[in-house]
């Protein structure tokens, strides 16, 4: 019970949590041992390695600021309307946004620690990669599920039903994404040896399929369906000023979900190496992180406007 209360307090104080997480992450960059593979691959000195990582880390920290500020504002708005018929759904939406916001720094901090252990102890590298794959899956999976049920609750409160056309469009989109994802992932496996763990994921294919790929496909479905349902709510909402503010929130949420899916997709299709590399994947990750940051900024803007309607 105490742990749960503490957790709720932490979530309810986004900017304090943000500061703690950001400082921890930046300190870890400076303090954790550098990867020998990284230094060798890019001919970096240890100083150069840390400066490059710190520069990228600062961009992440700025994107996290938008994320924590965005869910803070959404949480404040949901508190203001908690007694209305939409209050519970907005509160759930804020919780989902909070999970997504927390998932970025928490996953990165844990992964950095795991990789640092593997730099000192080679045998730990497969475990580090397996754990980092699961951590990167679980946190957004919970976030997408909560956002999905909040979007569904809002749609139901407004008596909105997803159309058959809309559901089919999501099914087709997911079929394409899923097929491409499975194809790209399977190229890393020896399909003739089902139990073989000699692959970049360090998992037998059947475990990879059931515990990583299927949950990812479910998470992406939940995310895409949430975008669809919440956009229905946004488009059908009555009240010109209310709808404009709500649409900012809806678009922001859509951008956050698409950005998160893109990052997950990237790391699933191109497996983690367990050390820092300057390649196209890093550039894409940065772009998608900035994209999610912009999405959260839109959420904040929408929530601020909605809040103002309730306060004046």
């Amino acid at each position, binding site marked *: 019970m105490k742990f749960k209360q503490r957790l709720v307090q932490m979530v309810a104080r986004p900017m304090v949590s943000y500061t703690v997480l950001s400082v921890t992450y930046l300190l870890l960059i400076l303090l954790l041992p550098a990867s020998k593979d990284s230094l060798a691959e890019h001919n970096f000195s240890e100083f150069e390695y840390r400066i490059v990582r710190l520069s990228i880390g600062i961009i992440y920290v700025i994107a996290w600021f938008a994320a924590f500020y965005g869910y803070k504002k959404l949480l404040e708005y949901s508190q203001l309307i908690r007694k*209305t018929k939409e209050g519970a759904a907005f509160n759930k939406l804020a919780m989902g946004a909070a999970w997504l916001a927390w998932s970025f720094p928490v996953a990165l901090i844990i992964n950095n620690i795991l990789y640092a252990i593997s730099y000192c102890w080679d045998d730990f590298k497969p475990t580090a990669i397996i754990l980092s794959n699961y951590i990167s899956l679980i946190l957004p999976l919970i976030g997408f599920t909560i956002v999905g049920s909040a979007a569904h609750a809002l749609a139901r409160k407004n008596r909105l039903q997803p159309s058959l056309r809309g559901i089919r469009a999501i099914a087709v989109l997911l079929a394409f994404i899923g097929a491409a994802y499975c194809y790209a992932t399977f190229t890393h496996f020896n399909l003739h040896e089902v139990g073989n763990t000699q692959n970049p994921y360090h998992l037998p294919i059947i475990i990879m399929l059931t515990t990583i790929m299927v949950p990812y496909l479910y998470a992406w479905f939940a995310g895409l369906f949430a975008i669809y349902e919440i956009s229905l709510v946004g488009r059908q*909402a*009555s*009240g*010109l000023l209310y709808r404009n503010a709500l649409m900012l929130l809806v678009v922001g949420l859509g951008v956050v979900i698409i950005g998160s899916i893109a990052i997950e997709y990237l790391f699933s299709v191109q497996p983690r190496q367990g050390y820092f590399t300057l390649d196209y994947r890093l550039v894409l990750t940065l772009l998608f992180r900035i994209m999610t940051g912009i999405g959260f900024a839109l959420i904040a803007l929408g929530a601020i*406007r909605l809040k103002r*309607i309730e306060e004046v």
Partner: protein
Amino acid sequence: MAGKQGNSSVYDQVVKVTHVYLGPAADRFIERQVENHLHKSPEQLSESDLESLIDWIQVVVSLITDNNEIIEEYTAELHKLAGTSNKSKATS
């Protein structure tokens, strides 16, 4: 919600107009304006309060949006309501 009880037709009409701009927040918004600025409960809102309420709404809505067109359109709708109310008052 309070406006739905008792002699509340003026309140309901104001909420109906406001709903076009503020959607589900309309009822709460008008209730707040009546209570905070006119120091009345929504049930006590009468036609004679409308002009003063519209003035307050104009000030408050300008805090929500910079779009003058929307503010003017909204207050014009409320003024129409006040006009209708005044006419009906004169007739009765």
